[in-house]
C-alpha cells in the first residue's frame, strides 16, 4: 500500500461520486418544471440502491475471479475485501478500489434516466435499475475490466466507453422506444438551463476523477489522461458549436454544455492510449457527431430519447471506441496497442467487435428485463399523471411554488 496513490484514488473516487448528483441537476434543468424532481430522483436513487447492491453482490459479480462472462461469488458481502491491496492494484487498499468502481456502477445507471424522463414510473425504474445493474452492468464490467472475454480478446476501454457510456446510452434508447413518446415530445422545453449548467460543470469536474483515476496510480499515463480529458472536453464544445452555427446560425449554451459532455464521453475509452493532438481530434469529432445524433438521427428515426442518453453517451461512446481503434499508440501507453493509424488493423476490428457485442447484449437484456417488469408494474405513468406532472402525481411535491 502506498499513501500517495491511496490519497489520489480517494480524491478520484469522490470526484466520480459528485457526477451522479451532477447528472441529476443536468437532466433536471432540461425537463418541464412539473417533472424536475422526478427526473432528478431517477438519477439520484442509484446512489442509494446501486451502492447497497454493489457491496452486497455487484462488486463480486463484476471483479472477482469467474469465467469469461461472469465474475464469481468470492467477494459477496465484501468478504476478503479490506485494507489489504487486491489483485487490481498493489498500491491502494482493495476496499478503495471497490469504492472507486462503485461510483462507476452508480453513475452508469443514473445516465439511463435521460432516456426515460417525463414518463417512466418511479417504481418501474427502480426495479429496472436493480436487475439491470446485476444482469447487464456486472457482466459488462467483468468482460472489460474483470478479466472477461473482451479483456482476453485485447480490446481497449480505458475508463468505460463501452461499460459506462455505450451501455447506458443503448439502454436509454431501448427503454425510450418501449415507453413510447412523451405526450408533447415535439416541444423541448428545458425549464432551467442554469441548473443544467451547474450539473454539466459538476460532470466535467468529476470526469477528471473518472478518467485519471482509472489509471489507479499517478504515473506518466495518468498525466496524459488528465491532459487528454481536458482538451477533449474543450474540443467537444468547439466541435458542437461549429456545426450548430453552420446548421442553425446561433451557438447555444445548452449546445456548449452538450459539446463538453460529448467530448468527454468520446475520450473516455481512448484517454490512456492516445496522444494529445489525437484527443483534440476525438473531442472535436465527438461534439460534431453527437450534434448529429440528437438533432438529425433522433428526428429521423422518431424515438423519444428525452434527454439524449443515447444521443450523447451512446453515439459519443461508439465514436470513442472506434477512435481508440484508430488513434491508440503504444508510444503513449506500452500496455495498450497500436490503432489503425499506427498500423494496427487488429485492434480496430477488436474495437468494433466490442462495440457490437455491447450493443447486442445490452439491447436484448434491457428488452427482456423491462418486459418482465412490465408484467409486475406498468412501465409508464397514466395519461392523467403525465399531464399533471410526475412531481405531483408520483412524489406529491412541487419544485417551485408561486405566491398563491
Amino acid at each position, binding site marked *: 500500500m502506498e499513501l500517495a496513490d491511496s490519497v489520489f484514488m480517494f480524491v478520484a473516487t469522490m470526484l466520480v461520486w459528485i457526477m451522479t448528483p451532477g447528472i441529476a441537476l443536468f437532466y433536471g434543468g432540461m425537463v418541464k418544471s412539473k417533472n424536475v424532481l422526478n427526473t432528478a430522483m431517477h438519477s439520484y436513487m442509484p446512489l442509494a440502491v446501486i451502492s447497497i447492491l454493489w457491496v452486497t453482490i455487484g462488486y463480486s459479480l463484476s471483479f472477482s475471479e469467474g469465467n469469461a462472462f461472469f465474475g464469481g461469488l468470492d467477494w459477496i458481502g465484501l468478504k476478503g475485501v479490506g485494507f489489504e491491496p487486491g489483485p487490481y492494484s498493489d498500491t491502494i487498499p482493495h476496499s478503495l478500489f471497490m469504492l472507486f468502481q462503485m461510483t462507476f456502477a452508480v453513475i452508469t445507471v443514473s445516465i439511463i434516466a435521460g432516456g426515460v424522463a417525463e414518463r417512466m414510473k418511479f417504481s418501474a425504474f427502480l426495479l429496472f435499475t436493480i436487475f439491470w445493474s446485476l444482469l447487464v452492468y456486472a457482466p459488462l464490467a467483468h468482460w472489460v475490466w474483470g478479466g472477461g472475454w473482451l479483456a482476453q480478446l485485447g480490446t481497449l476501454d480505458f475508463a468505460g466507453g463501452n461499460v459506462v457510456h455505450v451501455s447506458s446510452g443503448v439502454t436509454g434508447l431501448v427503454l425510450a422506444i418501449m415507453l413510447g413518446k412523451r*405526450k*408533447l415530445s415535439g*416541444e423541448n422545453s428545458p425549464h432551467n438551463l442554469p441548473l443544467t449548467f451547474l450539473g454539466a460543470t459538476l460532470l466535467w469536474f468529476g470526469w477528471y476523477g473518472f478518467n485519471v483515476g482509472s489509471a489507479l496510480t499517478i504515473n506518466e499515463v495518468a498525466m496524459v489522461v488528465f491532459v487528454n480529458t481536458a482538451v477533449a472536453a474543450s474540443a467537444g464544445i468547439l466541435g458542437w458549436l461549429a456545426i450548430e452555427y453552420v446548421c442553425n446560425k446561433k451557438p447555444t449554451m445548452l449546445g456548449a454544455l452538450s459539446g463538453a459532455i460529448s467530448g468527454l464521453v468520446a475520450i473516455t475509452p481512448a484517454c490512456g492510449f492516445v496522444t494529445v493532438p489525437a484527443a483534440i481530434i476525438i473531442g472535436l469529432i465527438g461534439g460534431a457527431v453527437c450534434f448529429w445524433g440528437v438533432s438529425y438521427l433522433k428526428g429521423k428515426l422518431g424515438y423519444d430519447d428525452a434527454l439524449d442518453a443515447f444521443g450523447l453517451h451512446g453515439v459519443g461512446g461508439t465514436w470513442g471506441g472506434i477512435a481508440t481503434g484508430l488513434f491508440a499508440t503504444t508510444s503513449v501507453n506500452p500496455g495498450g496497442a497500436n490503432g489503425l493509424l499506427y498500423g494496427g488493423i487488429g485492434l480496430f476490428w477488436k474495437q468494433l467487435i466490442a462495440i457490437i457485442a455491447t450493443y447486442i447484449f445490452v439491447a436484448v437484456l434491457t428488452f427482456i428485463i423491462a418486459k418482465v417488469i412490465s408484467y409486475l408494474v406498468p412501465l409508464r405513468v397514466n395519461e392523467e399523471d403525465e*399531464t*399533471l406532472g410526475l412531481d*405531483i402525481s408520483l412524489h*406529491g*411535491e*412541487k419544485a417551485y411554488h*408561486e405566491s*398563491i
Partner: protein
Amino acid sequence: MMGDVLTKIEIVTRPDNFEAFKQELAKIGVNGITVVEAKGTGLQKGYKETYRGVTREISLHDRIKIEIVVCEVPVQQVIDLARKNFNTGEPGDGKIFIYELANVIKIRTAEEGRAALKNEQ
C-alpha cells in the same frame, strides 16, 4: 366601425393541448391571441403535497386563460374548437366566457374595430 359586432372570448382551461388549439385557430383566421398563466378552482378536487411529512392541501390548479377577440370569424367556430381541444370529460376542463366589446384600437395605426383586428402587413 359602426355595425361591426366585436366579441371577446375568454377561455379558462387546462394548459395541455394548447398548441394544437392555437394551430387550429390560425386555420380559421384567428391570428392574434393573448394567453396568461392562471390558477383556478372549481368542481375539481384538490390534491396534497407533502414536505418532510407535513401535508399541504392544494385547491388551486394550474390553468391558462386564453383571450380572443373576433369580428369576422364566427364565435361559435371558436367555441367548437375550444370544446374539441379542451374537453377531457373530467371536472376541471374549465369554462368559456363571451363578452360583447365596445371597440378595439390598434396602437400602431390607430385603426379601430374590424380593421384593427386584421393582422396583415
